[in-house]
C-alpha cells in the first residue's frame, strides 16, 4: 500500500489531521469533540505519517517518546485537578479565567488543561502502539 500517491499525500494529510485534532480538542467543551476523540484523530495522523514515511521519521517528528507524552498527559490531568486545592476548594473543582482578546472572549480553565492531558495520553498511547507495530515493517522492507 506504500504507493507514490500515498507517500506524497500522507505528510500533508497527517499535518491536517493533527491540526484538526487540536481544533476538535479545543472546541470540545461546547461542540462535539474533546480530548479523547481529538487524541484518536491525532494518533491516526501520526500512524498515517509513520506508515507513509517510516517510523524513524515519525518518531523524529514527534521529538519525544510517545509513552512519555502519555505519562505527561496523566501528570497534567492530575495536576490540573489539584490546582483548586491551592485556592482552598476541593480537588477537581474547575477554575475559570476569561480574557478579552480583541473583543473576543477567550475562556481558559483547569478543565481545559485536564482535557489537554487526556489528549496527550490518547495520542501518546495509541501512537506508541502503532509505531511499535509499524517498526517491524521497517526492518523487513
Amino acid at each position, binding site marked *: *500500500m*506504500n504507493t507514490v500517491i500515498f507517500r506524497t499525500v500522507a505528510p500533508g494529510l497527517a499535518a491536517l489531521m493533527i491540526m484538526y485534532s487540536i481544533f476538535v480538542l479545543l472546541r*470540545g*467543551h*461546547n*461542540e*462535539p*469533540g*474533546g*480530548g*479523547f*476523540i481529538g487524541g*484518536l*484523530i491525532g*494518533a*491516526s495522523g501520526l*500512524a498515517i505519517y509513520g506508515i507513509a514515511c517510516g517510523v524513524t521519521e515519525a518518531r523524529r517528528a514527534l521529538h519525544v517518546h*510517545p*509513552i512519555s507524552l*502519555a*505519562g505527561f*498527559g*496523566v501528570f497534567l*490531568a*492530575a495536576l490540573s*485537578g489539584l490546582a483548586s486545592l491551592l485556592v482552598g476548594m476541593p*480537588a*477537581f473543582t*474547575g477554575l*475559570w479565567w476569561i480574557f478579552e482578546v480583541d473583543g473576543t472572549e477567550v*475562556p481558559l*480553565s483547569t*478543565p*481545559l488543561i*485536564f*482535557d489537554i*492531558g*487526556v489528549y496527550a*495520553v*490518547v495520542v*501518546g*498511547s*495509541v501512537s*506508541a*502502539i*502503532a509505531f*511499535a*507495530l*509499524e*517498526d*517491524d*515493517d521497517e526492518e*523487513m522492507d
Partner: protein
Amino acid sequence: MPITIEPGEPLGPTIDFSVALIAVAPFLAAAIAPLLKRFVGPLAGWVLAIVPASIFVTLIGFFTPVADNQVIRASLDWIPTYGISFSFFIDGLSLVFGLLISGIGTFIVIYAGGYLAGHPHQGRFFAYILMFMGSMLGLVLADNVFTLFVFWELTSITSFLLIGFDHSRQAARRAAIQALVITGGGGLALLAGLIALTVMTGQNSLTGMLMSAGTAQEHSLYLVALLLVVGGAFAKSAQVPLHFWLPNAMEAPTPVSAYLHSATMVKAGVYLLARMSPVLGGTPEWFWILTLFGGATLLMGGALAVRQTDLKQMLAYTTLGSLGLLVMLIGVGTEYAILGAILYLCAHSFFKGALFMIAGVIDHGTGTRDITALGGLGKAMPITFVAALLSAFSMAGFPIALGFFAKEEMYIALTGGVWPDLLFLVVLIVGNGLMMAVGLLIAIKPFTGALTATPHKPHEGSLSLLAGPVVLGIAGIAAGVLIGLVNTYVLSPTASTITNTAVDAHVAFAFDLADPAVWASLATWALGALVFWKADAVRSGLRRTGNAIGFTFDAGFDAAMFGLIRFADAVTRLLHHGKLEMYVLVMFVVLVATLYLPMALTGTFPAMPGFPVLTFYEWGAIAIALIGLGAVVFSRVRLVAIAALGIQGFAVALIFLLFGAPDLAFTQFMVETLSVVIMALVMTRLHVDGRDHRELEVAVRDGAIAIAAAIGFAIVLLGVLETELDLSLSELFEATSTPIAHGRNIVNVILVDYRAIDTVGEIAVVMAAGVAILSVIQLRARKTPKKRAGTPKPARTSRRAAS
C-alpha cells in the same frame, strides 16, 4: 496528628505522653543510626545505647505509681471512625516487660558495637535492632488491640531482617523466611482472634477487655477466639509443634540471638498469654491447652538442648524449654504459678541474655562455638568465666539467685497433691534439671580442663562485649538478694495484672526440709548434676533416639512449603496456560453466563418488541452493518475479515449519528478506523497465518458462543429499555453544565469536570495498557529474529506479494 486526652476512667488512670514516646523513640534513633555510625565510628554502640538507657530510666520512674496499682495511659487518634486509637498504657505487666526490653537492650546495643566492630553494615544493624526495640516496646505498651497487632507484626518483620542480616548465606535467608512465615502466620491468627475478642467483649482496648473480663469465656465463640489467640502466641513463643524456627534463627548474629530469641521477642507470646489470662483464662480449655503444649515444649527443649554441641544451639533449645515452662505456668494460673512465672521470666531474661552474649564472646575470642572443641579458657578469659558462672548459678536455681526463687514458687504452686499437679511437677523437675545441666556445661566446660587448640588464640573480650554479661549476671544474683524490693515493685503489681485480683507477694528465702518444694529443688539439682556429669553419654543416647525417629518438624516445614509451591505451580498451569484462544473462549463463556444467569434466576425476560418503523436510510445503515457482518463470517482471508469488521462498525456509528449522538458516532468512527489499522498491523507484525484454518467443530463451537453472547446482549438491552429511565442526573447536567461548568457539550463536561477523577483513572489505565502492549511487542521483537531467519512464514510472503 491531633493528640487527644481520654477522659478519666473510673479507675483514675494517669495520662502521660512519655508512654507513647517510649515506643517512638527507638524508631527515631533507628533512622539516624547509620548516619551516626559514620560520624562516631566505633563509639556508635555506646552513643546509641543512650536511647534504651533513657527509656529504662523513664520506666523506672513509673515504679511507684504502678506499685500503687495506677494505670498510666496515652492515646493518639488513628481511625476515629472505627474508634481505633493509637493508645498505650503501663501497668505492672507492661512495666516489667518494658524494663527488660530497654534494660537488656541497652547492653545489647553496646555489645553489638563491639561484636560487629568493623562490619561494613554495622550502621544498618543498629537501625534494625533499634527498630525491633521500638516494635517490642510498642507491643508490650499497646492498649488498643490493633495497635498491639501492628507492633506484633513489626517485631516479626524486624526479626526477619535481623535473622537474615547475613543475607549472603543461604542458611540465614532460609531461617529468616521460616521465622517470618511461622510468626507472621501466627500474627494473622492473632488478628482474627483479636477481632473475635473485640466483637465478643465490645471493647477494642486491653484495658477495656480487662474491665469486662469474664464475658468472653461465656460467649459461644470463646473456643474459636481462644484457639486463634493462643495459636498466634504459640507461633511467636515457639511452642511445639511450631518451635523449629527458633533454633534455626540462631543463624542471626549473636546480639540478635541474645536479644530477640531469648530475652524479648519470643516472650511476646508469653506476654500475650499473661495479658489475656483474665480475658480468656480460667477455663478447662485454657488450662489443658497451655499446660500440655507448654509441658511438651519444656521437655522437648530440655532434651534437645543436651543433644547439641554448638553453644548457641544449646542455648536456643533451653530457651524453647523456658518458653514452654512459662506457658505451662500461665496455664496453671494459680497465684503461686503466676509468681513463679514472673520471677522466672525476669531471671531467664537475665541469665539467658548473658549466656548468649558469653557464647558470642567465646566465639569472638576463639573462633569456634563447639563445646567439644573448647576447654581451659578460664585463664585467658577470666571475666567471661566469672560472668558465665554467675548466670549459670541463677539458671540452675541455686540460692539465693533470682532463679532460685522462681523455681521455689513454681514448685510450691504444684505440690498441692492432686494428680495433674503432680504430673506437671515431674515435668518441671525433669525440664529444669536438663536446662540446669546445659547451663553448667556452658559455664564450666569451655573454661576448665586442658586448653584445647582453637582457630584463634583465645583472648578476653573488650569492655563493650563484657559489660552486658557481667551486669546481667550480677543483676540475676542481686535481684535475689533484694527480693523484698522485687516483691513490692515487680511481683505484686504484675501478678495483680495477670490474675486481675489484688496480689500481695511475700516471696522470701526459706529452706525448710519439711516443705515438699525444697525436695523438688533438691531433685532438680541432683538430676542436673547427673546429666552434667554424664553429658557425653546422655548426648549420644539422645542422638541415637533422634536418628531412630527420623522425622523433624523442620523437614516437615520444608515439605509443606514445597507442597505449597507445587500447588501454586499447578494452579498457574491450569489458569495461566498461555493459550490465547482458550483465554478468549473462557472470557466469552463467562460473559454468556453473566448475561443469562441473572435473567434465568429471577425469571425476568423482556417482552418481544414490536416491529420497528424506520426510514429508508435507517434501513440502509442496518443493511451495511449486516453486509459487513456477513463478510466477517464468510471471508477466508483474515485481513478482509478485519476490514469488514470496520464496515460493520462504521454502520453502527452511522446509526448513532442518525439517532442524535454525534459525540458517540464521532468517537466510534475513530475507534473503528484505528482498530482496523492496528489489527492489520498486528496481523502482519505477529506473522499470523493469513487464513482461518479452524476446523468445522471448532468454528461451530465459537460461532455458537458468539451467537449466544449476541442474543444475550440484545435481551439485556431490551430489558434495560423496558425499565423507566431515570432522568434526574441528565436533568442536573442539563441544568448546570452551562452556568457552572461553562460548557454546552454535556458529554465532554461530564468527562473533564463532573467526573474528572474517573477520567484520571481511565487515562491512567490507557497509559498503562500502552506501556504493557509496547513491552509485549518489544519482547517479541527481541525474540523473533532467529526464528525469522530460518523459515519465512506464509503470511509474510503473501503480504509482500500484495504490496
